[in-house]
């Protein structure tokens, strides 16, 4: 196993299989080439990247699944406990008996807190999206690696020699990163849903899969995985240094919400005092992602209506498109040397 092994003579060259014939009209086909996506996927699967990220996805899914399952069981247990003691106004002393309208409110509150199917649905959504927070960070790092690996390992040269139309390369990278993200989502979701359904059914609860509040967060979780992969590719193109791009993307993801709260809190306190200000916090990618996957719109102020999930989805999609477009334009112009 050394280079001094007998070398094939150059004269063997003409015996090589002839190259496949040029397909007709090859230059006029659309820029997305399946074979380039296959090449990009192969780049990931022939290095340790895919299983290292997969391992972290599994760990983060497993740990949060455990916590979320325990929380769901605790909530359901508390609701069952409460249900055995409905409010009874008959024993109250006549002078202290709540009025009819007060009784009505208490009963409604009781009904809400013991609505087992609703609690199951809410907790199921939470359990089925276990590992999302760290998972999305891993996916953004994956997107970064898909691009920066080419520069760290100088493979950009052979890549762009094989495919001088760079838009096609970036498109293939975007699609490959999205496919991988969807794959990680599928694995993570399969584990969470499988384990979650087992847990709920063992305790005698049926999971209302058809309820929008159950399947929508799961579907939006998929969208979030795919879009963060796109954002990662965009980051990788903007910041070519691997470590720099990884830290920036992960950092922005992690501190996105707290720093947005700080900035918007400042604006709310000193500039615009209306709670409407909080609605614009959805412009921050991390917040948009959170809004998108939430069952209830997150509220940051008492008078705020909350931003609906689909605005979060739109905002994150817009960022994804923007990152992909800027990334493509930059890559097309960049000198590879």
């Amino acid at each position, binding site marked *: *196993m*050394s*280079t*001094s*092994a*007998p*070398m*094939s003579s*150059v*004269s*063997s*060259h*003409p015996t*090589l*299989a*002839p*190259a*496949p014939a*040029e397909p007709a009209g*090859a*230059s006029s086909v659309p820029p997305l080439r399946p*074979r*380039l996506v*296959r*090449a990009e996927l*192969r*780049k990931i699967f*022939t*290095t*340790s990247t895919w299983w290292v990220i997969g391992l972290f996805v599994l760990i983060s899914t497993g740990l949060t699944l455990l916590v979320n399952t325990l929380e769901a069981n605790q909530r359901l247990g508390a609701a069952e406990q409460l249900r055995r003691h409905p409010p009874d106004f008959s024993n109250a002393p006549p002078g202290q008996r709540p009025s009819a309208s007060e009784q009505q409110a208490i009963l409604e509150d009781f009904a809400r807190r013991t609505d087992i199917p609703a609690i199951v649905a809410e907790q199921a959504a939470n359990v089925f999206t276990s590992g999302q927070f760290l998972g999305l960070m891993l996916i953004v790092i994956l997107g970064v690696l898909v691009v920066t*690996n080419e520069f760290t*390992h*100088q*493979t950009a*040269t*052979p*890549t*762009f*020699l*094989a*495919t*001088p*139309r760079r838009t096609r390369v970036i498109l293939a990278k975007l699609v490959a990163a999205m496919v991988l993200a969807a794959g990680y989502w599928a694995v993570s979701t399969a584990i969470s849903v499988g384990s979650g359904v087992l847990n709920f059914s063992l305790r005698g609860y049926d999971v209302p899969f058809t309820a929008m509040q159950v399947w929508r967060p799961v579907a939006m979780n998929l969208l979030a995985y795919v879009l963060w992969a796109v954002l990662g590719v965009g980051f990788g193109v903007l910041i070519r240094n691997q470590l720099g791009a990884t830290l920036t993307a992960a950092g922005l993801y992690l501190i996105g919400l707290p720093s947005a709260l700080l900035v918007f809190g400042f604006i709310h306190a000193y500039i615009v005092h209306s709670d409407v200000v909080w609605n614009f916090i959805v412009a921050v990618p991390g917040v948009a992602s959170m809004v998108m996957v939430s069952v209830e719109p997150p509220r940051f102020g008492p008078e705020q209506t909350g931003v609906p999930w689909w605005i979060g989805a739109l905002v994150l999609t817009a960022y994804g498109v923007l990152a992909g477009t800027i990334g493509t334009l930059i890559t097309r*112009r960049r*000198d*590879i*040397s």
Partner: protein
Amino acid sequence: MDGQLVVSNLTKVYPKVRAVDNLSFTVQPGRVTGFLGPNGSGKTTTLRMMLNLVTPTAGTATIGGVRYADLPRPLDVVGAVLEASSAHKGRTGRNHLRVLCAAAGYPDRRADEVLDLVGLTPAANRKFRGYSLGMRQRLGIAAAMIGDPKVLILDEPANGLDPEGIKWMREFLRAFASQGRTVFVSSHLLGEMQQLADDVIIIAHGRMVAQGSVSDIIASIAGPGAVRVRTPHVDQLAVELSNYPVTLEYPGENQLLVRGVDAATVGRAALAARAELHELTTEAPDLEQAFLQLTRAQAAIR
């Protein structure tokens, strides 16, 4: 499509330096053409502009009349070896080639065929980080050969190779050119090109210095060699040699360095002068020295 390379008025200006300055030349198929210049003279930038990796500030480069970016299947036309470390350290040599096969639309077995061609089959499943520099160069050639191209473009391929590797590379490129294909290979060593190339293009500071066949270029830049003579009768010989168009140097006691005539003429003169000879040798011109002087002179013109 033939494999003629045509570079016309190619220019690359970076913020602080004019790396390539209005360079024009053609490279013919069936020959090995050397691309010579000192380090930093713009060779790599030129090659990268020819391959659409670097955008020219002005000018064009075509391969068989087509710009690289417009080649529908570029690897079928041009194979390029630009840097020895263009592979992921954690990927095996075979997988590196299979990635390129997938991107260029070739079946995976093509990777094994080119590995065999460069003699890397025993190391196919080893990771790239374990490859020696010679193995990395071979992997680069294997990658360049995936499309069985008409043109090979190589940037300093002999860098870091041991003598055996250099010999292998030389034979490989000569055989490739002898099949009527084009070889364009850069180097900063004239001596290396003397053994390999048919034609040379010499640049300095991004500008053309000289181009032509290797023998013509060497004759024009190095001038005739010198004849070294050792004789106890230096003065007698010098008098006799004054009948010839020569320049004389006296490098030491009983020594004479004669330029302008060949060794046979000096021997004849010595016989006529009845000078006893202890040594009569022809000294080859120092090519590298002459080459450096030539390129330095060009730099001074700027």
